[in-house]
């Protein structure tokens, strides 16, 4: 600002000159202040790149269960454009008689840069049968992952930075033609446009034309202040001139393209054309077609007023106006403009395709990265974060949870819209978190119950008790235990006399039945035999919190956990006793694509595989004949799943945690203020669990029986050996040295007893 600081030493004697000198000084000071403010903002923003977060890339391979229609949906979700001829443009595909042909986009995976590459996918029924490109056959091909969000600062501005060379020429031409015709000539403000605006506005008596240059609009976006005062206009104009004085036109245009406000998505503000392109079309900016680019330019004037979802008609009209102006300015031919005008708005159907922004999952990503990265690195360094999120699973979980909660609200008329819920789904063996829902309103980054709601787990604790009993060597799954009243003396001199949920007792039962039907008395007896300290240690080792207090009441679930922690605990069971720390993030690369960090699979065996295998058989029975049997008929009949219901005191929490061979899932329902819900784990959480599982196309839980166990048919009630043809029998793998009696009148024949009988006989004779 040295130019405006001219010194006038010759004017001492005249007071009005002194006054104007003072005034000049004040103006100079003000300009200096504006200069610092706006250049700081400009330079700051230029480098403020929120970390981009990607879903898992879909891996395609021969044998994968993937009907062509589903792959097509996935491609559309990725913004791939359906075309009629052989796809040549990156990001396009076509259906053929034999399958799907596509041209992938260039994508920098964390471990390789893949150039745009053709791929032909052939199907045999609902499965992929062959992957090839020309004569080269491939075994595995991964699609590009979906951009599922970014880690933006707390002020809520999200953006996806577009470099100048990624900006379509037509976009630049359209912005100039529609918003600022003399952009290349003016110095920040355009007096002629301003004058024209004033005249138009005077004539019509209302504000119709802004007359703001792109630079002025940029400034306005920096300070987002919509008061239309003269003073603010003046400030804006001064700042625009300052910006033009400091920076190139191309820098300013690029900043504009990345800065301009383009709409609102919950508490997230969509800024810039890069993110707007993803948000409205699910496609990168450089792949947009003319009618789509024109729509974005049309929206600049007022993203809420010209919202394609809410006001399609007037938005379409303005888009067509933009196209006409483009043709008038020779940026496109009249024929091109006319063709584009004939197109529909063509925005990505977020309702049908599901949102592409998952705040609850992003909170987990943020939490995992917070251990290694400062918040400002995440929000400004342009990191790229690759996660295990499965968008299809996430969308299913969101939809089923809200539908299930809405259904329960209807049943419980008085409590309108208050019941909260959470879902965590992980991949059973790799420990990757693939979906997180923290609220019924999934697109809102509010209180994330999946990560932050610490609630009593009720009977979800029981598998830890039974695991300890089985590992102690004193019990197997068919061993008897008394489900009879028990009184436990507590350290403080009190006594504790737990009850069954039903209030009834069941006499002598098997461990299998006691767990499947969630009997409290039998569980407390077992738990007191192995000791609450042991149970607390086991629960911690499985992935529960480190500070569990080993009171006897722990045996019935007097311990609080988050749904995520429960998923960790049940993941250990799904993994046959191997704890696999849950991870949301696979790897992180910096803005240049260089790998910064990987979060590899790590495992730790914390339980005896034979004991876990036995335990899981009981958890399978939970869903067949125990407390979870009401889910039968709501999931595919041939799907083998295991799990456990949980209900806390006075029905305050409704839980279901369980797994298949592919997915571990935890569902929690409850009120934030801890009111009773009137729901058990079975009537609440389980129903939603089953509804989600029903849509996942999940693989059955079918582990290899360990060598130390032998399959036997056993009477469910008594645990005595029985013929398979007898009523109420179940096939169990039990320790080879387990001693079982025979069911009177229904005992297995000698032939069936096989080796076991011969061993006993040998033993008896020796």
């Amino acid at each position, binding site marked *: 600002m040295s130019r405006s600081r001219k010194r006038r030493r010759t004017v001492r004697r005249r007071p009005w000159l002194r006054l104007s000198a003072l005034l000049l000084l004040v103006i100079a000071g003000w300009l200096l202040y504006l200069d610092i403010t706006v250049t700081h903002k400009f330079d700051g923003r230029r480098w403020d790149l929120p970390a981009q977060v990607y879903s898992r890339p879909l891996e395609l*391979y*021969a044998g994968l269960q993937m009907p062509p229609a589903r792959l097509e949906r996935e491609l559309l979700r990725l913004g791939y454009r359906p075309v009629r001829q052989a796809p040549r443009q990156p990001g396009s595909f076509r259906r053929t008689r034999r399958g799907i042909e596509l041209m992938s986009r260039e994508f920098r995976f964390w*471990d*390789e840069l*893949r150039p745009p590459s053709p791929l032909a996918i052939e199907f045999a029924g609902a499965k992929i049968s062959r992957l090839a490109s020309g004569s080269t056959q491939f*075994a595995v091909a991964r699609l590009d992952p979906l951009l599922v969000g970014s880690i933006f600062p707390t002020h809520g501005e999200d953006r996806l930075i577009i470099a100048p060379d990624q900006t379509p020429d037509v976009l630049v031409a359209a912005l100039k033609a529609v918003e600022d015709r003399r952009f290349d000539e003016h110095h920040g403000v355009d007096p002629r446009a301003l004058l024209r605006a004033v005249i138009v506005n005077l004539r019509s008596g209302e504000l119709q034309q802004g007359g703001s240059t792109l630079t002025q609009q940029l400034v306005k976006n920096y300070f987002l202040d919509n008061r239309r005062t003269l003073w603010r206009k003046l400030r804006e104009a001064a700042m625009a001139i300052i910006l033009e004085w400091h920076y190139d036109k191309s820098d300013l245009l690029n900043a504009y393209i990345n800065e301009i406000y383009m709409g609102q998505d919950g508490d997230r503000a969509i800024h810039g054309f890069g993110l707007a392109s993803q948000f409205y079309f699910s496609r990168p900016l450089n792949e947009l077609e003319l009618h789509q680019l024109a729509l974005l330019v049309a929206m600049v004037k007022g993203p809420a007023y010209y919202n394609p979802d809410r006001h399609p008609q007037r938005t379409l009209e303005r888009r067509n106006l933009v196209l006409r102006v483009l043709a008038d300015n020779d940026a496109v031919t009249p024929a091109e403009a006319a063709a584009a005008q004939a197109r529909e708005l063509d925005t990505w159907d977020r309702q049908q395709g599901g949102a592409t922004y998952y705040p609850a999952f992003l909170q987990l990503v943020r939490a995992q990265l917070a251990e290694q990265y400062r918040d400002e690195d995440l929000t400004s360094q342009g990191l790229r974060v690759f996660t295990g999120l499965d968008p299809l699973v996430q969308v299913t979980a969101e939809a089923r949870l809200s539908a299930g909660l809405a259904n329960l609200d209807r049943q419980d008329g008085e409590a309108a819209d208050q019941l909260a819920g959470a879902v965590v789904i992980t991949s059973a063996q790799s420990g990757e978190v693939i979906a997180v829902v923290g609220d019924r309103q999934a697109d809102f980054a509010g209180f994330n119950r999946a990560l932050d709601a610490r609630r009593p787990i009720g009977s979800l604790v029981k598998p830890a008790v039974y695991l300890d009993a089985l590992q102690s060597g004193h019990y197997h799954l068919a061993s008897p235990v008394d489900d009879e009243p028990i009184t436990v003396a507590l350290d403080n001199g009190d006594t504790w006399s737990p009850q069954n949920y039903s209030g009834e007792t069941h006499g002598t039962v098997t461990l299998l039945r006691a767990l499947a039907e969630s009997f409290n008395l039998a569980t407390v007896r077992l738990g007191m035999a192995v000791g609450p300290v042991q149970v607390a240690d086991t629960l911690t080792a499985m992935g529960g919190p480190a500070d569990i207090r080993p009171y006897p009441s722990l045996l019935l679930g007097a311990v609080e956990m988050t749904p995520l922690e429960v998923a960790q605990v049940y993941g250990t069971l799904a993994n046959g006793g191997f704890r696999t720390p849950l991870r949301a993030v696979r790897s992180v690369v910096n803005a240049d694509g260089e790998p910064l960090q*990987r979060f590899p699979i790590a495992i730790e065996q914390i339980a005896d595989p034979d004991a876990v295998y036995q335990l899981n058989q009981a958890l399978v029975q939970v869903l067949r004949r125990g407390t979870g049997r009401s889910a039968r008929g709501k999931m595919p009949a041939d799907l083998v799943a295991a799990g456990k219901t949980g209900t806390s005191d006075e029905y305050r929490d409704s839980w279901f945690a369980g797994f298949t061979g592919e997915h571990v899932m935890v569902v929690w329902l409850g009120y934030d203020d801890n009111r009773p819900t009137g729901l058990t784990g079975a009537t609440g959480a389980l129903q939603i669990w089953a509804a989600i599982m029903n849509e996942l196309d999940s693989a059955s839980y079918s582990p290899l029986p360990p060598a130390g166990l032998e399959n036997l048919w056993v009477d469910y009630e008594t645990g005595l050996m029985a013929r398979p043809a007898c009523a109420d029998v179940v096939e169990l793998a039990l320790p080879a040295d387990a001693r079982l009696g025979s069911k009177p009148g229904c005992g297995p024949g000698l032939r069936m007893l096989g080796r076991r009988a011969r061993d006993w006989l040998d033993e008896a004779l020796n």
Partner: protein
Amino acid sequence: MRVLLAIAMLALAGCTAPYVQTAPPASPTTAPTGTTDGSGQGAVVGRSISTAGEALLEQSRRQRRAGEFAQASASVERAIRIEPDHPAVWLELGQLRFEQGDYAQAEQMGRKSMSLASQGSVAQSQAAQLIADAQRAGK
């Protein structure tokens, strides 16, 4: 420097296939593919691994030989996601961890592989070998 790196990466990208190619049939495999040990007892035939799983394991081995441990690890993990209950994928990750000097994880992966292998299969004895090696090396 960065430019050089970029050129090097482009060159690398240029000479690799965009997708994972099928492993050549003659490639050595750690997966049990129906071989017997010839001792007359006849090792149990394990479940064979899919073409996709084998291709990723083969890619991982290639990367491991080139000293690209991080890439090798990523490739095995892709195989694990595709075929998580096959003993060969966990064995491969365990052998990689062993080579990286992480004997604790090598042993754990061996145990995981063991828990998935059929009784008496080649995979089982390979897992047992890895566990023993890791325990010895970790001492």
